[in-house]
């Protein structure tokens, strides 16, 4: 093939000149513009602290990282729940080590807050907005330190964002527990002074004075309890009483109180009982609840928060009396219990269709077995589950948690749970106050609180108007408080900390295992219909108490205080290990 290329001299010259110019231009064109790119996602530091909205956005990130949400555990080492398939936790088995709990991640939250506090005093926007932001920051710093100190004892107190210039100055030793508690209370007092009484509009959900006062009460109550106060120093209880009373008084004066219907506390958003809350909504902010639901109507995880028989038995009867296994039969354990029982526990055939899957399937959940091959097999209860409602990987206690479950969830939407989580509600403020009152001898106030809590749970006052509380001495009322907290706050993440602060591991070891019920269809009895009334067919089943742990509870007293993980000790030679774990630090100082 041929192309005839007709180029005369002039054209060639033009091409040559234009080319030289072009290439010269290229070579001299030291296009440093090529390297001057802009960061398309950044906000410069100067704009952050001169604009209240942007500064608030920085604070919002702290909320997102720190505000607690709906709890769910596989086995939180307390008597609240049975383990999934006998997979008892290391704490229960007594095999936990200092690496088993690492809460030092709070320090990245503390650093974020310290950066906020260092800059907020120099902020150039409206001072009232700036002090409100500072108050919230101080609250969260107290929250972060409390969550570490209540587990380990004293930790290094870092109150400014450390500079990374000189690495040798960064390693700090642990402060004494008493110093940490003083700092936490100081931060809270400063916060209380700066925070508004309440928020409105888009700011509802932020920490206000009520939440800060309530949290201060929680902190002082914890540190006055036997774990950190083995000598029963009354001044600590007095301080706890003053703080919890101040919280209660403030809440009463600002419209907070017990919400009349216990079962609706989590369904009715932002009701009067809610003091500190994490808000959720579909589709912007949701979480996964699949692990809490029976697997028939769920997916991707299983086995969380399955109530133990110990918890079920702790709920009082409607008349205020306690459950008595000697005189009462497990076949009818669901009769005449208080409101909290029906709101928190799902039992075999309960008419509470708390899951959308039950409503769609026109059925209740039946947890009984057609045939049991082993009450205590490798995975616990083994056999043929009934076919009316199949339930693979069933609960070994035959109970399920119903507290704070999103009723709209189906198998496909288990990631879309949107139930608000009230971290602090009025009932806690009241109970904290009552417990402290009892410890300093104010027996009457302590009892009044118990009556209020029980009245709300629709328990009858009875002839002596004492709602079934027969305790009169300080030690008896203390036990009444322990039991009342157990049922009032079940599955709210409180039980294990309560057992620690009251030093009740001996009680756990005496159980000696968490128990459940094995429900079996009596031979010859027909299977149930999906919507049968358990009240009429309860006698088709036998209930047997079964043990659900892999071995007897062997939780060690060493676990009252946690050990500091090796990964943390490796990075700071000045950090001492707790003395119960082979170190020299005494968390009681």
């Amino acid at each position, binding site marked *: 093939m041929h192309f005839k290329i007709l180029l005369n001299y002039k054209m060639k010259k033009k091409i040559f000149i234009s080319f030289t110019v072009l290439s010269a231009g290229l070579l001299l064109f030291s296009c440093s513009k090529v390297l001057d790119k802009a960061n398309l996602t950044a906000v410069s530091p100067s704009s952050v602290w001169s604009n209240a909205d942007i500064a608030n956005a920085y604070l919002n*990130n702290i909320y997102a990282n720190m505000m607690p949400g709906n709890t769910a555990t596989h086995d939180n080492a307390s008597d609240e729940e049975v383990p999934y398939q006998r997979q008892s936790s290391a704490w229960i088995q007594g095999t936990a080590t200092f690496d088993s709990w690492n809460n030092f991640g709070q320090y990245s939250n503390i650093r974020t807050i310290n950066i906020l506090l260092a800059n907020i005093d120099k902020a150039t926007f409206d001072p009232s907005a700036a002090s409100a932001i500072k108050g919230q920051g101080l609250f969260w710093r107290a929250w972060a330190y409390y969550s570490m100190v209540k587990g380990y004892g004293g930790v290094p107190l870092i109150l400014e964002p450390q500079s990374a210039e000189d690495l040798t100055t960064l390693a700090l030793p642990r402060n004494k527990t008493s110093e940490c508690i003083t700092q936490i209370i100081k931060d809270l007092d400063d916060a209380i002074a700066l925070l508004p009484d309440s928020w409105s509009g888009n700011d509802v959900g932020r920490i206000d004075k009520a939440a800060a006062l309530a949290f201060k009460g929680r902190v002082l109550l914890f540190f006055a309890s036997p774990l950190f106060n083995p000598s029963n120093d009354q001044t600590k209880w007095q301080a706890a009483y003053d703080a919890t009373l101040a919280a209660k008084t403030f809440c009463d004066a600002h419209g907070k109180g017990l919400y009349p219907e216990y079962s609706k506390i989590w369904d009715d958003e932002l009701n009067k009982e809610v003091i500190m809350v994490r808000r959720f909504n579909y589709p912007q902010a949701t979480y996964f609840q699949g692990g809490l639901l029976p697997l028939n109507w769920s997916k991707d995880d299983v086995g969380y928060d399955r109530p133990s028989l110990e918890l079920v038995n702790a709920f009082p009867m409607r008349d205020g009396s306690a459950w008595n296994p000697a005189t009462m039969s497990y076949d009818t354990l669901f009769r005449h219990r208080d409101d909290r029982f029906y709101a928190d526990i799902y039992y075999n055939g309960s008419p509470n269709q708390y899951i959308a899957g039950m409503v769609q399937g026109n059925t209740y959940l039946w947890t009984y077995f057609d045939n049991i091959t082993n009450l205590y097999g490798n995975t616990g209860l083994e056999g043929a589950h009934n076919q009316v409602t199949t339930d693979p990987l069933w609960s070994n206690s035959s109970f399920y948690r119903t507290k704070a479950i999103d009723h709209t969830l189906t198998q496909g939407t288990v990631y879309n749970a949107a139930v608000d989580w009230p971290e602090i509600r009025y009932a806690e403020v009241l109970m904290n106050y009552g417990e402290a009152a009892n410890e300093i001898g104010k027996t009457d106030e302590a009892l009044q609180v118990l009556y209020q809590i029980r009245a709300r749970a629709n328990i009858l006052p009875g002839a002596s108007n004492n709602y079934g509380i027969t305790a009169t001495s300080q030690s008896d009322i203390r036990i009444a408080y322990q039991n009342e907290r157990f049922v009032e706050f079940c599955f709210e993440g409180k039980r294990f900390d309560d057992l620690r602060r009251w030093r009740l591991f001996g009680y756990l070891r005496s159980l000696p295992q968490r128990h459940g019920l094995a429900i079996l269809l009596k031979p010859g009895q027909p299977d149930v219909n999906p919507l049968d009334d358990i009240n009429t067919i309860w006698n088709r089943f036998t209930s047997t108490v079964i043990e659900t742990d892999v071995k007897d509870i062997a939780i060690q007293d060493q676990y009252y205080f946690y050990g500091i993980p090796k990964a943390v000790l490796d990075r700071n030679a000045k950090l001492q290990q707790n003395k119960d774990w082979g170190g020299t630090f005494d968390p009681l100082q």
Partner: protein
Amino acid sequence: MDYYNAAYRNPNNQKHSLSISGGSDKVTYYIGGSYFDENGFLPQVWFKKYNLRANVQAKLSKNLTVGINLSDNYGTRNRFNFTYDYGSTDLNNLWGKLLYWNVFSPAYIDGKPVNPGWLGNPVEMMKNGGYWRNQDQHLDALLNLEYKIPGVPGLLVKASYSNNSDNSFIKNFAKKQLLYNFQTSGTNNLIYENKVLSTVLSGDPGTEYIGNEYTKTNSYQLNGQINYDNQFGKHHINALAAYEQYEYQYNYFSMYRYNFPLFPTDQFFAASGNPSDWSTSGNESQDGRLSYIGRLNYDYGGKYLFSSSVRRDGSIKFAPNKRWGWFPSAAAGWVISKENFFQSSKVQNFIDMLKLRLSFGSTGNDAIGGWQWQDQYNISSSTYYMGSPGTTVPRLTYGGIPNPNITWEKSNSYNVGIDMNFLKNFTFTTELWLRHTYDILGPRILVLPVEFGGTMPAVNYGKVDSKGLEIELGYNNNIGRDFSYNIRGNFGLATTKVIEEDVASNAQEVDNPNGKTLNYGKGLKATGIIRTQSDLAKLPSGYTIYGTAPVLGMMNFADVSGPNGSPDGKIDDYDRVVLGNYFGSGGAPISYGLKVNFQYKGFTVDMLFAGLAGFKVSYNDAWGRNFGGGGKIPLYHADSWSESNPNGTTPKLYPWGDGRATYTYTSSFNTYDGSFLRMKYLNLGYNIPAEVMKKAGLKGAQIFVSGTNLFLWSKFKFYDPEIAQFMSYPEMKAFSLGINLQF
């Protein structure tokens, strides 16, 4: 294996190409196109690609050549939509489920997909659960120009401009599948019968959706070059000065609609019209690069060779005053066999060519995330929900401590080599190399205490040395006129040493990477299974293994150290030791291979063997050596200890989470030698003789048959030692057949 068999399809691929080329002394041209079609071994996995290119080079005058090279390719990748594997490149979740899951439930009964419960039916999900389809169009246009400066022989200027654009469009659709509940029977309700009880929609995907994503990237590269090449007597000089400029723009957006009110279909009109069911996002980024290059080559009589070059590169990742790096290199060669003293010596009878070469080079690396030199806050893509009525509020995060001093990571390599051809038929090459990489960019985390609460920015801190030896020996010969053969073997040895790397200030020696190889492995040292009561009695009182008291059948380990540096009667992280210097096939120090080629008349045979040695592999199965929740137990545990089998080779089995399952900890017990030799390919070809061709009007034709990855020899038998993890998509054996025609 029922699920695996139900899903398996025979994979195959085909490739066809056609090209035309020709020209005269003024113009040359090439036009070519190809089509590639591949089907994977799972449903809905396929890939198609069309490729078209054209290249025209025209000599406009004696000194000026211009050319254009255009390439357009369009490919479509399709795969199923599997919730758990979405986005993974080696499908490890799916593969695990196919192999392991739910041994009692068949995938289909009577053609209807079975609902095995919460798990979902993975085979049905692959077939009918939607798809993910990526259509990618890529255009490259390259203009080049070369001008020989008249009057100065050997001097020419070259310029080229290349523009690349890529449009990638993804359509993503997921829908629920209809599953059937069958009657079960048996004492544990695990036997399935062919009786349908009800139907149910699958749990996955949780919410059905249709989505489109579009990524547009545009980049160009501009090169200018002045080249001088001339010969003066025996001296030959080649000098080059070049300039290179590159810019890149990336733009992405996505839009999804969730929920179909009437029925799910892969079109937007069927999706929900409610704004709360819509989700959109997008982002953008830029990049740029600037380089100046100079190179000088000189050789004398083809006997003494010398080459040097220098690069000056600028990167946007660093602050303006730190963004330039100088990277020089130099090389020298001496063809000893051309020397007079060599030619006249006896050695010349054996050695035909002998060349000695030395080189030094430095390169730079800027592979870190951008903007670490700037103090900045970033608006987070997540929000927080609060307010009454509720609303989402924005979040701002601090970008981290900036380091305005970060700059290029540098690597200097030194090389010395010998090339030799001897006894006419032998070729030999050996090379010794040393590389020193310093100013390695990386965050310093461990050096800070945890209480600092943050991380240091990337710092030019690390230093790594590596060195090695390579040998290659080849032989070619022919027997008679028709048979020729060529064999080439190679062997390589390489080792690395970390001189300086981030380490916790109080770390144990086993955790300190400094002074060790780059990929050393650590774990416990296994001392054997506790088989008898007397073995148990020999252990000290209070002995625990990660908190668990020892029982018969447990794997035991050596108590090497404790918090005080001496053995403490407990096995925990303090007792870890270095298990091997090279873990994983990526870090193998020894590599070797053999390439064989035979030719007889029109037949050719090509074989390649390649292997790696000297490294260890840590056996790891689907769930970190644990099992439970419905999966099969791996063959690894076939001979486990039990009261009736006290001489078992593996420890006693325990369910997931049980502290007595000490075989789950990485130790010398589950670490194996991973050395292997693989037959990488075997090609057989036949060149159809010319006489036959002429009759058919063809200029030439070849037929070929080949197989890749045909054999693997290794002591490690559990899985291919070269794959990343137990459940990764496996290495494939492929057989292909093809034909090549010229006309």
